[in-house]
Structure formats: C-alpha cells, structure tokens
C-alpha cells in the first residue's frame, strides 16, 4: 500500500538530492562513479531506494536502470525495500556469534515481533544482520542507526528501545 502511494506522488528527485549528487561528481573522473553515493544520498532523504528513484538516478548518471540495479542490489547497505526510521544491524560474524549474537537477534526480533529483514508494525525499526563491525573486543555488538553499541547484553537490548 505504502509503495503504491509513493508511486503516485513521485515527482522526481528533489532539488536537494540532485544538488548533493552533482556535488559528488567533481571528485571522480567519470560520473558513473557517483552511482553508490547517489543511491546513498537518495536513501538519506527517503530511507530506501524505490524503483522510481532508481530510474531517476540512472537518468542522472546516464546509465541504464539495469546497470544501476546491478549496483544497488550488490551492496549490503543499499535498501531496495522500505525500512523503518532506524535500522538496527546486529553483527552475526564469528566472534559475536561465539559470544551470543543469536540470542541478541532473537531478543531484538521478539521485542518488535518481526523476523530479520522486516519492518516493525509502527514503522520505527527494521532489524538486519550485518557482517563483522570491527569491534570484536566488545562482542557482541549492534549498530543502531549510525551508532555502534558495544558489549550488548539482553538487558542492553531493552535500553535500545527505551525501556
């Protein structure tokens, strides 16, 4: 339903998005290089990259939507489905796994009543797995939005949600 609404109101990329994307272009020899930044800029403004946005970015880059889709789907941090206001990434790589990341995942998912990859019913959160966050001396770790949370316990999970 939400996607449908977006489709009807999509009027192209915003001037701010286009300005930010164009500003990145001077850093590279070739404007195709901005593809990933462009997708991240769109995502910063809209949380995720819809089909309409993808086509609009491809036009700006002078590449085919198929080529850009190949890029968008390749990278873990580009979302091609709606996500919640805050994305919670839990590390499931080796050290975090050893020290209880499965339990952390279950706790997170149970709290929001979702499976990994799903958005909570209120649209606030999406839970996703992520590979090693480079903080193995403080495992297990999760990343809430941009913020790394170290030495996560089951109690700390409650704190994420303000309880």
């Amino acid at each position: 339903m939400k996607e449908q609404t977006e489709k009807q109101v999509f009027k192209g990329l915003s001037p701010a998005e286009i300005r930010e994307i164009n500003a990145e272009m001077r850093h590279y020899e070739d404007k195709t290089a901005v593809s990933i930044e462009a997708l991240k800029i769109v995502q910063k403004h809209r949380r995720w990259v819809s089909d309409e946005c993808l086509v609009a970015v491809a036009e700006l880059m002078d590449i085919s939507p198929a080529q850009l889709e190949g890029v968008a789907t390749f990278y873990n941090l580009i979302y091609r489905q709606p996500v919640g206001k805050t994305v919670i990434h839990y590390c499931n790589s080796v050290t975090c796994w050893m020290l209880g990341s499965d339990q952390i995942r279950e706790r997170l998912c149970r709290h929001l009543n979702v499976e990994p990859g799903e958005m909570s019913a209120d649209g606030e959160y999406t839970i996703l797995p992520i590979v090693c966050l480079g903080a193995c001396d403080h495992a297990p770790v999760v990343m809430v939005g941009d913020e790394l949370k170290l030495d996560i316990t089951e109690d700390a999970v409650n704190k994420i949600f303000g309880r």
Partner: protein
Amino acid sequence: MEKMDKPLTKNIRPDRPFATLADYESTGGYQGLRKAIAELQPKDVQQWVKDADLRGRGGAGFGTGLKWSLVPMDNISQTRYLVANADEMEPGTFKDRMLLEQDPHQLIEGMIIAAYAIQAHMAYIFLRGEYHLAKLRLENALLEARSKGYLGEHVLNSDFNLDIVLHTSAGRYICGEETALLNALEGKRATPRAKPPFPLVSGLWGKPTVVNNVETLCNVPHILHYGVEWYQGLARGVDKGTKLFGASGRVKNPGLWELPMGTPIREIIEQHAGGMRDGYKLRGFLPGGASTDFLLPEHLDVVMDYEAVAKAGSRMGTGTLIVLDDKTCPVQMVLNLEQFFAQESCGWCTPCRDGLPWTVTLMKDIIAGKGRMEDLDTLAGLTRMLGPGNTFCALAPGAMEPLQSALKYFRADFERYITANNTIKEPV
C-alpha cells in the same frame, strides 16, 4: 623522544577520545612529510620505505616500497592514483578502526607521503560505510590538513599538489580485494578484475594506482621521521617494525595492542589478553582473521612473523587472533565462517559462487545429524577445488583455510555429528 617503541599508537590514549591536529603535531606529527618534501625526491622516499622493509598490513604482506617502485614514473604528466584501503571487514579484525577513529592525521600524513612517492595528485580513502565515527573524524581531519597547507595546492609551499577524497562504501566484503575495490570506486559492482594488468600499471580508470592498507600507510610517517635504522630496530623477529595485534573470543581481556613484529602468540594470548576466561580452555585460534588456518595450543610459541606463521601452516593475515575455546563447537564455528564467505562471494566465478553454498549445505546437514562420512571427503575435495589457482580472487581460497585446518585438527568433532548423531548444544 616520545614512546618510541609504539609509533602507531603513541597518540592513542584512554583520557581523550582522539588525537586532534595539535595533539598529533606535538608528538612529531607531519615531520615525516616535512622531511620528504624538503629533502627527498619521490624515488628516495620509495627507497626509504623499501629499505625499512615495510610489508603490507592488510594481510598479504607484499613489500610496500617495492609496490611503489613498480608504478611507471617516466611520464610525469600521467595521472596516478593512491587509494587507502579502509574497508576493514575481515571477521575478527578490528585494528584499522582504532587507527581511523583515534588518530586520523596519522593516516592522512602517511597518504600524503605515499602520494608524493608515486607522484599522485589525487587520493581516495575507501572507507567502510559502517565506520561512521571514523568518517566524521576523517572529514574533520582532512579539513584541518587543508587549512594548514598539508593538503591541496602546493603542499607545504612545494610544487606538489594533492587532494584526498573520502569515499564511504555501501558494504561488501569483496571490496577489500584491491581490484574489486577499484570497481566499487568507479561506481560498479565490486567484482575483482583479471590480473595482469596489475593496478600499479592500470588501475582506477585505467591509470596507475597504488592501493595500501590503512595500517601500512600509518607506518610511513614514522619511517620518514625517525629513519630506517630505528624502524628496523623495533622488531623482535625477522619482519620489521611494530604491528597491531589483537585477540577476541573468550579471553579475559580482549583487545588490541601495538607490539613488535616477531612477538610470540603465547604472549599475546596469555599476557596481553590475560589468558582464557575462568572455566574455559584454549582449543585453538585463527591467527589473523576469518580467512586463516586454525592453529592449536601447541603452536603458541610461534612468533608473529609472516614466514613463521606460514611455516606453522597458517597466515599472519591481519594479526588479530580469533580464539576458540573448549566449549564452542569448532564445526559450528566453521559453519558460521563459511556462511559469511558464501554470503559475501561476489558471484563472479563458478567455484566460489557455487562451491561456498555447497560447503554450507553439507555442513548444515552434518550438524543436523544428516551427514555421511563421505561428506567429509566432499568437503576436503571442495577445499582443493576452491583453493589457490582455481578461483578468480583470494576470497574462496581464504574461505577454505579455516575449513581445511578444521578437518585436519577437529575431524573427531565432525565425525561425532555423523556417527552418534550427536548435536552439541549451541554455545551460550
């Protein structure tokens, strides 16, 4: 001189979040760059780093000075690029994050000197998208470096110009492979490129490009400032300088320490990491990240040198140990590693794209009690078919390292699942 035995971490202190430009300058920061620009020709800088015998800290251990010296320099007007590989994503590895977050100017100075040595006028920092704090600190440090004349037009009033652009990635392990990284920087899918031509000759947009790891570049200012002889004197073993070593898992004091090259593994695990947590015994360890072979307690006296660890049957890799305790099932641990590699395979070449999911399926079946003894032969066969020489890049061979050594050292654990249908409880 200040804390000369720990050049990489001398500015990293618990009483402050990170070293500011003033902090960095107060301990000799940017002196190496001043010397390079004022006194040395680019070729001399290459020679210093070659003489110091600095080897790449990203895992492969290729000679840094040698790498620089292979860049074609005859046509001075040709575009050349330098790239700092800050895409730290090897499971169990957390060393570059500390350098990036807590002493960002060290990397920037190393990059400016490296760019001077190969006469590159544009450099990129390829940073993991997840390293948000590092991004903020680097952005700020780049602005500071520009305003102080270390970066931009006429670096330190010389005729050398350099700009550094911070690129944040969108997350994929394969981006750490240098040719895949170049494709990612060009805005493409990060699949590796065929070599030759090597990036040193034809890299970013077909131009000569040097890709160096963050920790490698952080060594460079000190070599220039304090000299080759001092640098060589830091080490205890065959390889030169210091290195960030770490340990994670069920040790008492997981962490990261700058220690001389050639430090025995026993010292890292028993002294610095404080040994195993109470109630746990050391069963084995991966010496340098997920893509290195297991070693056993009997290897504790092996020293952290590239050749010494290789002789013991593994690789020093990133130098951050992942410790396996006696209550974690090694088979399940390897399954976790193989799931990572299967997920992160770029899908470009068949052995990796198909072989890694097959490995995962077989291991899941074994753990679920549906395995047969022949499956162990199939797994052993896969370690050969996905091994060096059969794949496009080092991802799959790296994935096979923990598996092949687990089959050798922990075979009884695999067999127990098969013969007794004995599903060991998940670690708590």
